């Protein structure tokens, strides 16, 4: 229990932290404040403050233009909505197929080779996770041209890392006894996976997939901003033509889609667990 002495030499009782610790903590806070101030100065060096002061007026102007929404525009949004749902669903489906095999290669207890395949699979997982779906979208639109296909692949590429990581962690955490027991019956490696490992990771697998589908619905609604089709493309077109009453309809549509997918995944998850 650290105690401190005052100048007169008397002990002044118990303290929660030592002086050293207190001083270090203050220094840490000071460094954080200094860093923030520095970053703020650097970041706002090019900011035109008259634009910022003007913002409330701009905001009022913007919302004035957005209201009332042009409701009949909603009728031409069914096709983009369908595209959006397809991008999310097909992208997730492709990602599930690829990520499952990757996860078995990456998990310490199922990988066929610790030295070559495991690092390779981990690298693919990390690379896929590091790049945002929108950035994948930018790349794929540059490569494949604008359209739903680029969106599907962008969603798939981003989801592979996400599903792969969570799934390989689930595989590493399984109960080895069950695998041992299946192996002891003389089962082949394929049979060990089917009867020893798959039943243990199936709930995790289902939850992860449904969770990712929900995120993908969110992402695919905006993927069109970079040219990958769906509701985002309609948004981009309306923004470029300054058709603000259409923008508000699209935003409401996006919101409704996201809320619906959240509700649906909550239902499904309850059904699984």
């Amino acid at each position: 229990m650290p105690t401190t002495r005052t100048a007169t030499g008397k002990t002044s009782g118990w303290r929660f932290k030592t002086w050293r610790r207190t001083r270090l903590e203050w220094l840490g806070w000071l460094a954080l404040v200094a860093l923030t101030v520095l970053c703020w100065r650097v970041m706002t060096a090019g900011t035109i403050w008259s634009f910022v002061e003007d913002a409330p007026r701009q905001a009022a102007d913007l919302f004035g233009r957005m209201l009332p929404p042009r409701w009949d525009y909603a009728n031409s949004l069914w096709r983009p909505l369908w595209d959006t749902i397809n991008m999310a669903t097909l992208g997730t489906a492709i990602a599930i197929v690829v990520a499952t095999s990757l996860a078995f290669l990456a998990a310490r207890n199922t990988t066929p080779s610790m030295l070559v395949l495991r690092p390779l699979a981990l690298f693919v997982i990390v690379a896929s996770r590091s790049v945002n779906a929108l950035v994948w979208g930018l790349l794929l639109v540059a490569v494949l041209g604008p359209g739903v296909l680029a969106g599907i692949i962008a969603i798939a590429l981003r989801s592979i890392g996400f599903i792969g990581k969570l799934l390989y962690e689930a595989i590493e955490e399984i109960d080895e006894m069950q695998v041992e027991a299946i192996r002891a019956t003389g089962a082949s490696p394929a049979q060990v996976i089917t009867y020893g490992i798959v039943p243990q990771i199936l709930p995790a697998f289902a939850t992860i997939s449904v969770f990712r589908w929900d995120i993908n619905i969110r992402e695919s609604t905006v993927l069109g901003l970079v040219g990958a089709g769906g509701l985002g493309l309609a948004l981009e077109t309306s923004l470029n033509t300054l058709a603000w009453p259409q923008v508000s309809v699209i935003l409401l549509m996006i919101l409704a889609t996201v809320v619906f997918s959240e509700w649906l995944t909550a239902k499904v998850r309850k059904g699984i667990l």
Partner: protein
Amino acid sequence: MIESPLVRWAALLGIASYLALAFATIDVNWTRVSEGVVRAARLFESFISPNFTSRWSDIQQGTIESLTMTVTATVAGVLLAVPIGLGAARNLAPWWVYGICRGVIAASRALQDIIVAIFFVAMFGFGPFAGFLTLTVSTIGFLSKLLADDIEEIDPGQVEAIRATGAGFWQVIDFAVASQVIPRLIGLTAYKVDINFRESSVIGIVGAGGIGATLNTALDRYEFDTAGAILLIIIGIVMACEYGAGAIRKRFA
């Protein structure tokens, strides 16, 4: 998995017909895609030989904008998220404060960051300031919701005990609530720094500054080697953030 064969077959049929319908309605311009294969090869080639030099000043500026945006927005977001999170915890706040704070949280979570960025760019002009505001809003939505949910699940016995000593509201917060939620708050903040950097590399696409803007320009000019360099920088910083966040979370949570 599904017990009744009727339901099972119906589910399979449903999935099959959905897939058929989905594939039938995707229009793909195959000639454009086959051209794309050549481009994909070029893209891949330029990843192996990334060009950091010819647009270095743009890359540098974008990276600095992204990093400064991440830091300032996370700090501002945490400062605002803590009071909102306290207000949104049902076991601490009166019902009207709870309602307002939950409303703020729902509003800041409703739209994707990039859509929020579009609006901030329209209101505040191009540049990292709009990005800073976007990330701040997103940090508030993320942290205050998780903080509030955490506070609602704390052990009420400790609150009771501190209250029984005659402590006031702020003393209860300080000694009974904070001590239970702060480790997780630190972990979540570290995680959010990581997410904010990833997002800062994206919102530049709509004009909110950061390295996303540089990447977008590079791809528009078909300068794949520069784009490759930018992507490598993004991946590098994201990985550094992720390992840093992981280390902090292991230490505190």
